[in-house]
């Protein structure tokens, strides 16, 4: 029983971080219809930024979220402005490839700057935990979980209730029509990619006290982000949140009840099953 509850708890907490990665991707996909293969690499840059701030200025990783959000927003916005905006309306396979190329550039530039060494960011609470009726709750993950929840709620409000949020959605659905409504689609795209990147970067910041950092770390998260967004329904924030937590729990449950080796297989099988029975993902119809 303890083992069950323990793995449920770990699954939910790590799922929170996954959700944040997924939401970032879902917004980028939602607006640009671009499958962003560089998403994990953006997350990686967020990690290095956090690491840099921590090791040079001693800024706590959770506080550095406040710096990470604007910096990564700017990074994403610039990437969008200089590269992806030139590609809008191009063939989908070209967009995929462009993001792959950008991802290569990001990870290899970081490698040149920071070498390919693993970086470990150790804080006083990196392996801190709270005992909750025999279940240990990781302190840093619990904090991340709450930050994630807050960001998600704010974003949901922004996209559903504000005009700009709606304009972002409109751009996603028909660029030309959006232009005809007086929406500056270049700007909304920049905004969307910026937000998506800020979220990925934030996820990187949140995960760095408990994880490790190296230039190629992104690819694993890119895949995970894909699974999460599709599972939840592309373009759906609620879906991505749900998707993240489901993946987190599935992973930890199958590690316990099947085996660590198969846990990711279970995740992918689950993913395919959901797609087969509900091709638009869990929250595919409820938009955003």
């Amino acid at each position, binding site marked *: 029983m303890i083992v069950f509850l323990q793995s449920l708890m770990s699954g939910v907490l790590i799922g929170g971080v996954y959700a944040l990665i997924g939401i970032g991707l879902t917004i980028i*996909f939602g607006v640009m219809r671009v499958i962003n293969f560089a998403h994990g690499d953006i997350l990686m840059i967020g990690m290095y930024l956090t690491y840099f701030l921590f090791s040079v200025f001693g800024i706590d990783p959770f506080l550095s979220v406040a710096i990470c959000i604007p910096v990564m927003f700017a990074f994403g916005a610039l990437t969008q402005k200089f590269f992806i905006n030139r590609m809008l309306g191009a063939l989908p396979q*070209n967009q995929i*490839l462009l993001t792959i190329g950008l991802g290569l550039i990001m990870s*290899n530039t970081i490698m040149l700057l920071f070498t390919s060494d693993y970086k470990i960011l150790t804080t006083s609470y990196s392996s801190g935990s709270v005992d909750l009726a025999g279940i240990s709750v990781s302190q840093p993950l619990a904090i991340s979980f709450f930050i994630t929840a807050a960001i998600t709620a704010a974003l949901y409000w922004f996209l559903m209730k504000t005009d700009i949020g709606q304009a972002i959605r409109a751009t996603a659905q028909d660029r030309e029509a959006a232009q005809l409504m007086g929406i500056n689609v270049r700007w909304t795209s920049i905004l969307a990619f910026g937000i998506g990147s800020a979220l990925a970067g934030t996820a990187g910041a949140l995960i760095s006290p408990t994880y490790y950092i190296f230039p190629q770390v992104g690819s694993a998260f890119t895949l995970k982000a894909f699974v999460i967004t599709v599972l939840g329904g592309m373009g759906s924030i609620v879906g991505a949140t749900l998707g993240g937590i489901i993946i987190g729990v599935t992973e930890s449950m199958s590690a316990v009840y099947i085996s660590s080796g198969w846990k990711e297989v279970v995740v992918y099988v689950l993913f395919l099953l959901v797609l087969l029975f509900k091709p638009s993902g869990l929250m595919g119809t409820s938009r955003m």
Partner: protein
Amino acid sequence: MRVTLSATARRGASPLGLGLFAAAVVVLLLFPQFVKSPYALHMMVLFFLSVIMGESWNILGGYAGQYSVGHSAYFGVGAYTTMILMTAKGIPPWFGVWVGVVVVVGVALIIGSICFRLRGPYFVLASIAVAEIMRLSAFNLKELTNGAEGILAVSVPPLTIGGTVITDFLSKVPFYYFGLGLALLTIAVTWVVEHSKLGYFFQAIREDQDAAHSLGISLTLYKNIALVISAILTSLAGSYYAVYVGFVDPNTVLPLDLSVQIVLISIIGGIGTLFGPVVGALVLVPLSEALRSNLITQAFFSMGLVSQDSKVGIFLQENLAHAHVLIYGILVVIVILFMPEGVLGFVTRLVQKITRRDA
């Protein structure tokens, strides 16, 4: 940068193109007679491998418009089947390959039945997921695949017909001709597809599934045909790779990276065209080798631009070795941004422009 639709369409290769192709084939057939360097032959083998992979993906991705980013699955199945049969059962690869083909057809049909219910980006991601399942399973199914430790082939049994040894696979030349043969086979298959009903149906599916469906095209049937053709050819590439390298493990024959590589060849060259993937391979294989082996710096040295011991020389030597993937990435981005129709499309357009100006 919208693709303009104003151009009039042209079908089939021009006589000039066909002439060039025939000449290239003749040169390639004679190549090993003149070039003995194993390094050069090795590069040719990698080139053929890329052509085979690119052409086979092109049938599904380029013609039928199903952007699979999970082709490593078929590559891996071919590679593993051949290797397992060769090492565990002593079955020589030229039989194993066909078993691989049978297995891969089965696998492709299963994958098809799952993924083809999905469209667009969902299909892309499902194809990735399936390939990842295969890769992770290869880690876990230790009895069959030997898990992460992989399968090592100590030697390739010689190819004999009726007792006479045709080749013993000790040099690279037999591999060269096998590669060339397979590459020509994939090009031929693509040509046949392009010039048959299949080609029309595939393209119709690519352009608009619903419209195609209403014109009497069974989506399931024809998508699966495209997939099966593509998967078979990809598995041949996998078998070829496995026999050539003599080693397979999940991360070398089933990674996402490989799937991406396969897609890259077609797109860089020019998707949905007969020779696009050939051009893609022609660009990518030498380029990545030149970057990897730091040919640029070496060229600087030999031209006397920079001295080898100078600060700049040392800097270049040190850093370019680390930066080659970065440069590769930058080049990919440049190609995509400035040649959205691939190198082949770009060149064709350029040639058109020049000839028009002359006329």
